[in-house]
């Protein structure tokens, strides 16, 4: 290797590094801006459909939380709704049984319950790997579901938990029929969670988790415990899912067993893989595309839309195997590399 090419390479490493450093803030800003723009566009384009949009936000939080454990840590789970539902029920029970109707306190309750559920699920889930782990997650979500069904004096059982009353947000904004307050509340929650998660995923801890996903043996060989890190991530994930659950409880004022269901978990996983795992944007894109597509086709043909959704999933696997966002990102970076090479 000659001196000259060596120094060019070194210089290019230097620029890469600077680009990366600068990229943190700008990518965060792009992300926040993108959410704000999409949220505003949703508000302007579908002012009559804010309930759907709020629901998308709640599910997006669930999918983000799933991305943390599946996308960043490589733990496949079909039981993420256990965390989401715990948050939803906690928020709902606070209001319906304890008269705590402040939406912020209810959200806090949801976050705590989600984190606790995350801890419990994490401890159990990490006993196995691969397929058996997937089955553990299924067993867990069914246990949570059954528990909620049994504790019907608290949860309303299969009739759902109703009687959730809401104080105005900050004492100012009533939760109204059109769902404006709930929508804005949801958008703000999403922005906060997104910003915090951006910080977490590029932090040393985030890097550790990516390492665990790729090779836990190597992580142990540098003296870190994958188990501890994964439990921690599960708690964070639970808090995020709990936020989504609380938002769902607040915006709909009902919580039912489906919030804790296997179906909900599986749908979340489908949305995540659809968007692309291992990236917060992927989680958001997947949720948005799936929910909007489902809403569109199920309104267009309420009787046979499932086939269309199935076809969408197949098409995505065939033509965008890394998920929608992952594949777009690959295409863009491939183009950047090409243009980079042709530059003198």
């Amino acid at each position, binding site marked *: 290797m000659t001196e000259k090419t060596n120094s060019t390479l070194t210089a290019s490493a230097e620029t890469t590094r600077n680009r990366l450093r600068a990229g943190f803030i700008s990518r965060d800003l792009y992300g926040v801006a993108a959410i704000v723009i999409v949220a505003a566009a949703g508000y302007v384009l579908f002012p009559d459909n804010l309930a759907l949009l709020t629901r998308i936000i709640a599910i997006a939080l669930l999918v983000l939380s799933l991305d943390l454990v599946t996308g960043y840590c490589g733990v496949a789970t079909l039981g993420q709704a256990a965390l989401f539902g715990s948050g939803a029920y906690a928020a709902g029970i606070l209001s319906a049984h304890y008269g705590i109707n402040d939406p912020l306190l209810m959200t806090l309750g949801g976050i705590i319950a989600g984190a606790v559920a995350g801890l419990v699920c994490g401890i159990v889930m990490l006993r196995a790997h691969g397929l058996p782990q997937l089955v553990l997650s299924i067993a867990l979500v069914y246990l949570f579901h059954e528990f909620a069904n*049994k504790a019907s004096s608290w949860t309303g059982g299969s009739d759902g938990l109703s009687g959730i009353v809401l104080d105005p947000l900050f004492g100012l904004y009533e939760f109204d029929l059109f769902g404006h307050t709930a929508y804005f509340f949801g958008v703000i929650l999403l922005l906060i969670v997104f910003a915090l998660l951006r910080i977490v995923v590029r932090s040393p801890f985030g890097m550790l988790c990516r390492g665990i996903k790729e090779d836990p043996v190597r992580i142990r060989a540098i003296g870190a415990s994958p188990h501890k890190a994964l439990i921690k991530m599960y708690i964070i994930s639970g808090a995020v899912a709990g936020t989504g659950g609380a938002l769902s409880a607040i915006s709909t004022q009902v919580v039912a067993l489906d919030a804790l269901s296997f179906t909900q978990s599986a749908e979340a*996983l489908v949305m995540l893989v659809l968007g692309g795992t291992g990236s917060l944007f992927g989680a958001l894109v997947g949720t948005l595309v799936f929910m909007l597509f489902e809403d569109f086709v199920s309104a267009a043909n309420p009787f046979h839309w499932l*086939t269309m*959704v*199935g076809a969408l999933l197949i098409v995505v*696997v065939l033509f965008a195997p890394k998920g929608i966002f992952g594949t777009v990102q690959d295409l863009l970076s491939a183009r950047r590399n090409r243009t980079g090479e042709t530059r003198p």
Partner: protein
Amino acid sequence: MQTVFSIAVDALAYGMVLFVISIGLSVTMGLMRVVNLAHGGFAMIGGYIASYVARDLALGYGLALIAAVVFTILIAIPIERLLYRRIYGQPELTQVLMTIGITFCIIGIANFVMGPTLKTIPLAPALQGSADLGFRTIPVHRLFAIACGLAVALGLWYAIEKTNFGIKLRASVDNAAMAAALGVRTEIVYAVSFAAAVGLAAFGGVVGSEFLPVEPYYALRYMVTFLVVVSVGGAGSIPGALAACLLLGAIDTTGRYLMPEFGEFFFYLAVIAIICVFPRGLAGRAK
């Protein structure tokens, strides 16, 4: 004592039905490394075909069973060529997405073509009625299901462990490139195994239809059950799957007898306990 025997017989019958339906999935997941969530969909297609042949065409149960296996495989061949072939060796989550998509399509099409009502498969006269075991009576079709389970278990064990094809299959699984270099046409091995798995699914769908009635949502309704038994057994292991089915069948049946209101708890707690003790499944091999 009589009750204990009685429960044991029920558990055995239920476990065997689970085995017959799930074993095909164990083959795809363990030997072909494809998380095939559409397995229940193929079982359902088998059920529909059998129902059509036996009920609408009145051609009899035996013929219905054969037709179900043959036509389900015929339906599955283009699906394998066009879709499954694209996901061999892909990450598990991609496989999950694809096979859930296929399941949705199968459900949607079944609902459209066959309608949402339950379909039954009229049993052959010889399988109707009950047999006397001395301490209790048992429906003959349950004995038939137990026999089918044993036959399938033995047949598969023989095919995988003792035949030339089994050797090729195991070689392809362990190291596809090496097997190909040795002249094994892995594509064909995979296609044949897939067809066998689908055929088993259809067979199980028909034999098990007395327990799990055929309707469009079948494909998703029992997906979890199949996935659980296969994983608890250790994907790819015939004895493992058999043990898991019998064990879980026993736990499920006993739980439902002793404390029906906590039946679900029992079952899933048992699943968690088993996996915690055997993190790779009952017959899981270290990787």
